[in-house]
Structure formats: structure tokens, C-alpha cells
């Protein structure tokens, strides 16, 4: 652990929002510390883009770029401008007073670390359906990540199923055509939500069959998944569909377990921000990226809100500094007379 116990601004997250915020804050010489997490929320640092392949809609890459490579580039850019990146997971946050306190995973009994401002960019992760049989075959045929698990032998030349009708469903299904004999896509409604370009690719692919008006109701198998019971939503009739793999692409849930009792979240659990800003209900906490966005959820919109969070955070800290640094006074009181370390960061 190299990070100092007190920092002006701490970023929690590892996706486009977190790194864009870090790049702006580092260039503003605020010496941001970014906790990218060690498989925080079950995902590798880099976030949801590490579970994708080609990203074709992030401007600046004329022929597209691989998701993991895009994230590696962003990480390098953050480091290059002086962000301190810590590969540990923030396990607990206390937003009740400033400076905010936080604890790292496996060190929750140690004294807290503190920050004057926090940028929350913890993102979201794929939703599951929790079908009967899902627990039994989880990771034995049912996977959260087609790109991670596509290559395992149980999927080779076997029928596979993707549930969902959006762009990520289309992407996963197309990726799985490399491995499976056939890829079924189950769509609850009568049409795909995916963008035209992805929908057309999907519908045209010889290995893909899109089953509209169809939902899954049960996962069955022996040691591994063998079939799904599927239901036609129009007449309610069920039938078995042979399937050795099942992949969910039915949307996301925001990763708010650190904060959901401490700041305002909406009915779906997303962090509420003041419209047009990244300000949350707690002064000094800014939220960016998918943790506060259930509408766009794109790499580029995440990056955009990460930039907003950095600029808003910078402005707040500057205003408070002009007003005579009330934060430090509080910090000294809080920590039993131990003055927070303030020597310059040797890494920068």
C-alpha cells in the first residue's frame, strides 16, 4: 500500500468514467488516487469493457478497438499524467462527515483512510434472471461473460443461448458463433432493441436464430447445463430447447452497495445526481458513469460524465480552499490530534 492516508480526491472505479476523471484531476495537479479494485464487483479492473470485444463507436479509433485494449490505454493515460492507481477494493465508505472515510478490503479493522472529495464511478454489472436451476449450473454452462468463458470445451460445437435483445446481446451472440454450433437469442418482445447495424448483423448470421416472444423459465442438466425450458409469451406454451450454454444480456444493475444507504438512489438503485451535473445528495461526492446512468450507458457517455465530475470536483475544492480550508480543521479533530500527512506525493 503506497497511497497516503489522506488525499484531496479519491476515485473509486476503473472504467471510462473513473479514468477520464483521473486524467482531468491529474492534469489539474490534484494528485488523484484511483482505487481500481481487485476484481471489485466480480469484474476485472477496466470494468464492463473488459468483457467485450470490438468497440466500434468510441470516437478516435477509425476501425474500432478491443474493449480491454481501450481500457489499458485509458489506464496508461491516467498514470502518465500522475494518477496514483491502487489495485485494491474499497470495502466501506463513511460519507457522514468530511473528510470522508474509507476502508479497504481485508483491512476493515485498520484506521480509515480519508479524502476531501470522492468520485464514485463503480459502474454496473450484468443482471441475472435467477431461474430455477440457475444456481446449480452457474459457471457450469451458465455464464456472466461470453468473452471470458466462450472458449471452454463444453460450449464447442454445441447449441448456445443468449437472453436479451439489445446491443450487448447481439455482440455476445455474434462472439459465440465462433464456438457454438448454433446460437439462439431469446427476445421477450417482437423486436430487437439493438442498434440497426447490430440487429442486422445478428439476423443475417447463418448460425444465429432469434426467437421472439420467448422467455426462459428453467435451466436443466446433469453435471452441466443441457437444456432450457422456454416459454412462448403469446400462448404460454413451454418446450425444451437443447442448450449447453446460457448467457445473460438483460441489462445491468448499478454497483452501489458502498453508498446506497448514505446518499440518494432511485427506485432502480442508481445514484441520483442533480440534473446536468454529477453532484450527488452528499456535498463532495460526485457520481459518474453507469452507477448514475440508466439511460445511455455508453463508454463515451461515461467518459463524458467522468470529465464533468472532475471539473465539478476541482471547482468545489478550489472554492473551499479560498474559503479557508474548513476541511482540514475537521480532519484534525476527527483523527485524535493526528494531523493528516500532507507532504508531497513522491510518485508524482
Amino acid at each position: 500500500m503506497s497511497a497516503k492516508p489522506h488525499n484531496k480526491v479519491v476515485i473509486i472505479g476503473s472504467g471510462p468514467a473513473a479514468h477520464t476523471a483521473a486524467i482531468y484531476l491529474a492534469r489539474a495537479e490534484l494528485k488523484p488516487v484511483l482505487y481500481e479494485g481487485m476484481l471489485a464487483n466480480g469484474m476485472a479492473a477496466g470494468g464492463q469493457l473488459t468483457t467485450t470485444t470490438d468497440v466500434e463507436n468510441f470516437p478516435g479509433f477509425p476501425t474500432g478497438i478491443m474493449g480491454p485494449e481501450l481500457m489499458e490505454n485509458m489506464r496508461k493515460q491516467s498514470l502518465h499524467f500522475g494518477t496514483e492507481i491502487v489495485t485494491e477494493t474499497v470495502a466501506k465508505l463513511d460519507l457522514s462527515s468530511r473528510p470522508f472515510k474509507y476502508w479497504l478490503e481485508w483491512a476493515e479493522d485498520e484506521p480509515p483512510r480519508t479524502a476531501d472529495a470522492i468520485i464514485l464511478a463503480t459502474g454496473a454489472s450484468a443482471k441475472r434472471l435467477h431461474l430455477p436451476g440457475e444456481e446449480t449450473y452457474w459457471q457450469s454452462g451458465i455464464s456472466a461473460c461470453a468473452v471470458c468463458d466462450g472458449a471452454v470445451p463444453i460450449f464447442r460445437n454445441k447449441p448456445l443461448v443468449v437472453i436479451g435483445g439489445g446491443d450487448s446481446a447481439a455482440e455476445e451472440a455474434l462472439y459465440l458463433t465462433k464456438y457454438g454450433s448454433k446460437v439462439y437469442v431469446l427476445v421477450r418482445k417482437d423486436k430487437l432493441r439493438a442498434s440497426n447495424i447490430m440487429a442486422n448483423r445478428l439476423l443475417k448470421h447463418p448460425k444465429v436464430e432469434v426467437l421472439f416472444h420467448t422467455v426462459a423459465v428453467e435451466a436443466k442438466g446433469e453435471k452441466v447445463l443441457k437444456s432450457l425450458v422456454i416459454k412462448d409469451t403469446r400462448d404460454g406454451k413451454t418446450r425444451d430447447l437443447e442448450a449447453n450454454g446460457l448467457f445473460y444480456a438483460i441489462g445491468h444493475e448499478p454497483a452501489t452497495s458502498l453508498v446506497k444507504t448514505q446518499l440518494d438512489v432511485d427506485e432502480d438503485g442508481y445514484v441520483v445526481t442533480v440534473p446536468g451535473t454529477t453532484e450527488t445528495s452528499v456535498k463532495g461526492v460526485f457520481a459518474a458513469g453507469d452507477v448514475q446512468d440508466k439511460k445511455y450507458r455508453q463508454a463515451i457517455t461515461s467518459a463524458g460524465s467522468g470529465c464533468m465530475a472532475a471539473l465539478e470536483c476541482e471547482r468545489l475544492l478550489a472554492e473551499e480552499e479560498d474559503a479557508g480550508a474548513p476541511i482540514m480543521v475537521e480532519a484534525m479533530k476527527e483523527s485524535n490530534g493526528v494531523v493528516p500527512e500532507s507532504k508531497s506525493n513522491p510518485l508524482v
Partner: protein
Amino acid sequence: MTVHHISSSSEFESLLSSTMYVVSDFYADWCGPCKAIAPMYEKMAESASIQGYLAFAKINVDNNQDISSKYGVTAMPTFMFFKNGKQVAVNGNALIRGADAQALASATAKLAKLAKEKQDAGVKVGA
């Protein structure tokens, strides 16, 4: 000693028959969690490997379908443990599925201790 990058089932078999304890990491290039845990795995291999007693293998599932089928790999990464060529449970886990750093660290620590004891006692592989 570093990680053995396995490129064929015969190479894996020969590692299993020449080394008392083998830890194996079944992974794929595009798997984020696999990448995330890789540096830790490398470090463990560097610090804990003992020639003939404890080795660390990495098996690319894409390139080694035969090995991954044989051991029933269904998700990535998957970590398995072998003693004298047979797959064994460590700390009650038949295998570790997913990049569970804590479980992997404690399983490896246990094997490192056992391997050291066997080496000190002069027990040979297969005995």
C-alpha cells in the same frame, strides 16, 4: 522458477509425473478476471515453486481443448491442484472457479508448506 506455459497434453502429463504438487490455471486471453489474477499467480510461482515438488502451470483453454475437456473446465479462470498426477481438493475445494484471490492464496500456501515438508523429508515424487 516461473510459471510453466503448457502447450500440449504430453507436456502437461510430463509435468504432472515429474512434480509432486502441481497448481494449474486454466485461462483464456480475452478473459478479464484471468488477466487480473495473472500477476499474483506469477508471484506465487516465483516464490513457492520447488523443482520436483511444487510447480505452477498455465493452460490456455483455447489452445488446449483436450486438456480442458479431460478435466472438465466449465468457466474461467479455473484453478486445479494435482498430487502425484491426480487431481486433489485443497482446503476442501475440489477446484477454484473464478479469480478468487483469497482462496487461491490460501490453497497455494498450504501446498507450499506440504511440498517443503516432503522435500525436507526426502520423499520422492510418486511415493
